[in-house]
């Protein structure tokens, strides 16, 4: 959050977690701190927010709009996080929005100069939802540091579209908008490759997934919820109860988790 007129004074009192239905498509913007999320946000929505060069400035979600190919897109700038494990408030805000805010597309802004660390977040997001676009940002800095990235290979490995950009210079933004529109309208359906875990985790997750599916009715990725349950994530259970009205701590499920874990 820069100290903009959206973020200071009386407007700080306005809480904005879940947006009202806007008619257009809802796009979430996630990414590591300092990967250039806010710059991408500005470049897409047209200079609405000052971007400060310091981590943690986006505590509230900033939002803006843009139109492309006749569609309206509402863009939500999430706090920068290294993971979605809900270790901190930022991570929880970002995760809750991606899970329960029902964005049509989640764009993960990635710092091309330190790909490995940024991919951790990408993989966690693709585990949650299929509708993901990776925005490989800071390509200009990567070029200057002579880092070469095989973009088609990266896209194949991740199973989601990867768009190289240099948002500060406006490079690649048209392509990014095209890709966001394609995924939002369903013209492009990313199929991220699942991460394969150890055999016993897979067995436990598979069993839980089957039991969760009828309860979640497709509103959340059941395999992902199963994995979080195995991790012992309390905040997610609260989120599921709060936003979906499904109480996973009811006795039936409790028994099943117990069974699986034994």
């Amino acid at each position, binding site marked *: 959050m820069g100290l903009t007129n959206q973020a200071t004074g009386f407007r700080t009192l306005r809480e904005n977690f879940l947006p009202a239905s806007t008619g257009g498509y809802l796009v979430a913007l996630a990414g590591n701190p300092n990967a250039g999320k806010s710059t991408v946000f500005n470049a897409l929505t047209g200079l609405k927010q000052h971007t400060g060069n*310091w981590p943690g400035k986006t505590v509230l979600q900033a939002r803006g709009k843009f139109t492309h190919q006749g569609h309206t897109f509402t863009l939500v700038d999430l706090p920068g996080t290294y993971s979605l494990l809900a270790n*901190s408030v930022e991570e*929880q805000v970002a995760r809750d929005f991606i899970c329960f805010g029902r964005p049509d597309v989640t764009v993960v802004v990635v710092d091309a100069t330190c790909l*490995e*660390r940024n991919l951790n977040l990408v993989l966690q997001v693709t585990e949650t939802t299929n509708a993901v676009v990776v925005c490989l940002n800071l390509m200009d800095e990567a070029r200057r540091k002579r880092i070469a*990235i095989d973009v088609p290979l990266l896209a194949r490995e991740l199973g989601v579209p990867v768009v190289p950009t240099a948002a500060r210079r406006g490079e690649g933004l048209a392509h990014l908008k095209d890709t966001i529109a394609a995924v939002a309208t369903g013209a492009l359906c990313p199929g991220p490759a699942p991460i394969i*875990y150890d055999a016993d985790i897979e067995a436990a997750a598979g069993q839980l997934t089957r039991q969760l599916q009828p309860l979640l009715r497709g509103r959340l990725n059941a395999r992902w919820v199963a994995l979080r349950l195995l991790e*012992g994530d309390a*905040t997610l259970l609260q989120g599921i109860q709060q936003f979906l009205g499904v109480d996973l701590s009811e006795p039936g499920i409790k028994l099943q988790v117990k069974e699986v874990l034994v």
Partner: protein
Amino acid sequence: MAGQKTDPVLVEAQRLAGDLEDSYRDRIVAALYAQAEAIASRAVKEAPAPRREFDWRLDAILTSRLWGYPIMLALLAVVFWLTLKGANYPSALLASLLFAFQDILTSLFHRLDAPAWLHGIVVLGMYRTLAWVVAVMLPPMAIFFPLFTLLEDLGYLPRIAFNLDNFFKKAGAHGKQALTMCMGFGCNAAGVVGCRIIDSPRERLLAILTNNFSPCNGRFPTLITLAGIFMGGLLTTAAGVAAATLTVVGIILLGIVLMFFTSWLLSRTLLKGVPSSFTLELPPYRPPQVLRVIIRSVLDRTLYVLARAVLVAAPAGAFTWVLANVHLGAFSIIDHMAGWLQPLGKVVGLDGYILLAFILGLPANEIVIPILLMSYLSTGMLTEVNSLAALGEILVRHGWTWITALNVMLFSLMHWPCGTTLLTIYKETKSLKWPLLAAVIPTALGLAACFLVKLLAGLLDIVAAG
């Protein structure tokens, strides 16, 4: 707080998972990281030395034990020196333009045979207050905000946090409080919301309660103007500008010291506990986009703050004019109100009008000086054109000395937060106790500090006279 209510199913799951050799969480995370590493190693074809040479060297200086603090202070001083030096002339120019227009407005009202009270409210109340706000506040803000934004853009703020981390830790507070402190310099309400980046509820409360010690946008113009008049001798000499700069920097440093002190005190009394650790990534230095920074900071901050001041100052100006011109008996309402506050004001080296201006300024700190001027000016006439000199003359005519000015600056630093900030604190803490405490602590400190200054000045006077 989320996460504190434990679910029975979770307790069960944790118990069972704990029995296993590796916890599921560790193994899941490990698999994830391995996958990320594998993909990255295939996709990145050419990777040179991973870390940035230049950044390393710059950080070694900017965050060094020896140079970190001097550089921080020097940067702060340069920013305010430029602000004070640069704002003087445009301020005078704006004032003469705006007050020339007031004469035109007045003659227009006369020609239209408008009633005197209408002319009073609209021209002497609203317009004159507005003119003061614009002439006095706009130029320094138009210089200060772009400079501050440039530092922010360069990536200097996290280095400040890094430098101050040790102090915050010693005060029992969270290192991220340095970041919320910096946000507070922009706007305390934003700083309070920014405290959400601090996870521990105890440390977040510390940061929320002490954020008010960062003088915000609304208070900087007061500090800069008063320092310019009384410590800087109207900024006509280089020594004057230097003295005014040092005063403003001193006030800010005092605010930071008070933030540490209050955090330390609270973490040993009301909010006991140990500070938690955190990771702070020092982002790469990036060349600031100068033109964009200037445009954005002028549009987003300067004009926004000004608009807020104008929006609040116009009705407040009219309201104050009415208070100053409706008489009950021999005195106006404002005289009565100031009269009640006068004894307290005098004890702490202020006066009743000043305290009243701070009270009426609750909606926004930007309007404290305009309200004060309104109540001083309700009877007097404005003659000078140079804004600083004219302002100084009015204040001196009402008994101000440099001690009064210093006390007003101190009280501006240490008094209750503005209404918006108090509401924000209430919203963030969901309890009336914390906004109340956030108002009581600085006010008590402010009154004590002003009293002390007056006492010391009195002693000095006796010594000098003897």
